[in-house]
């Protein structure tokens, strides 16, 4: 390209995104994964935090350490381990399912089961989520639980009406990070399916599509445009989330409820 032959292309890369079917597909894949993964992961983290924080659980430190441990395993190693565990013939999950009379799905090669598989793998890294939620739970004043007990509240009512509102800032923090994490999801899909986006495009996440355009097809300009749109999507979602936080996040001391 010589200077006299160049011409300003303007927002051509952004216009191209509107007609590129892969962009819509990858956004749909990312949304599908996020809608499934975020509530399940948050719920599981909440459950683990409650479990290892239970007063009548002996060996709390041991359980906390053990549940946190997989978070320290590098994502590539974790991906290869899970690929073995989810093997249709020799994987332990399918063997366990067959032992109880259930057919083992083809976790990594089915366009339906790949999402539960990715969510299941993601649950292995809930250590940080568990720790932050646990710290939030430990910060709830005992007086509130005592008052609830006097009012005749059971365990579930105390959890629903005392614990959850009191840890809502931690939940909000984790929810924000998880939404951002879902949109930048890349590594596990790349490791498990070698970056092909298979089966049948089911793991062509937005970030994977971005990576392929920028570094495989050498379309760095288009890749950059995709990255900017990703930033804008996440930014808008974060603003919406912060906008709603006043309705459901409780900050003691600032007058909000």
């Amino acid at each position, binding site marked *: 390209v010589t200077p006299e032959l160049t011409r300003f292309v303007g927002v051509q890369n952004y216009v191209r995104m509107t007609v590129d079917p892969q962009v819509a597909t990858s956004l749909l894949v990312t949304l599908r994964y996020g809608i499934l993964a975020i509530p399940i992961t948050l719920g599981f983290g909440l459950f*683990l935090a409650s*479990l*290892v924080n*239970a007063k*009548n*659980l*002996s*060996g709390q430190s041991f*359980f906390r350490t*053990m*549940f946190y*441990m*997989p978070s320290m395993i590098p994502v590539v190693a*974790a991906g290869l*381990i*899970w690929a*073995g*565990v989810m093997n249709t*013939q*020799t*994987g*332990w*999950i399918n*063997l366990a399912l067959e032992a109880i009379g259930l057919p083992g799905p083809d976790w990594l090669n089915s366009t339906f089961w790949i999402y539960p598989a990715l969510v299941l793998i993601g649950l*292995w890294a809930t250590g940080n989520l568990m720790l932050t939620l646990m710290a939030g739970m430990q910060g709830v004043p005992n007086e509130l639980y005592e008052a609830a007990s006097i009012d005749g509240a059971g365990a579930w009512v105390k959890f629903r009406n005392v614990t959850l509102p009191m840890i809502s800032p931690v939940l909000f923090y984790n929810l924000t990070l998880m939404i951002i994490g879902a949109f930048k999801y890349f590594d596990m899909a790349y490791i498990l399916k070698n970056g092909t986006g298979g089966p049948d495009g089911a793991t062509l996440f937005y970030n994977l599509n971005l990576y392929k355009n920028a570094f495989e097809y050498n379309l760095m300009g288009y890749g950059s445009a995709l990255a900017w749109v990703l930033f804008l999507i996440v930014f808008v979602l974060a603003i919406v989330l912060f906008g709603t936080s006043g309705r459901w996040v409780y900050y003691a001391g600032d007058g909000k409820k």
Partner: protein
Amino acid sequence: LVGGLAVFILLTFLMPLGYMFSTGLKSKEQMSDPNAPVLWPFSQQTFTYNGEELPVYQVPIDNRTENLAAVNRTRTATTFIDPADPEAASSSGRATGARWSRPTSPMLSGATSRKPGTNSTSRCSSATR
């Protein structure tokens, strides 16, 4: 109750690490054979014949499956003998998979071997693989 639940969830949660521990004990052959036992390390059964260790295969013959040792393997045919009775004539068949045993099993190589040279090739038969 809470302790039991925590232990159950922890064991399920750390199951992939158990899988890797089990994998770390297996041989390359066991890992590459989908029909090999999954949980524990096993080695393929062998039968020592004429001083040579022969792999034992499961061979379906006439609606039954027999464990036969492969004497001679080529691309198109394999000659088998019966490790339990190498003197007896055997039938033709196709090997469907390797026969696996624990490393400490008495069926390991040499445990049931016969004296070298007591078996004649006329008692062996060829089977396509």
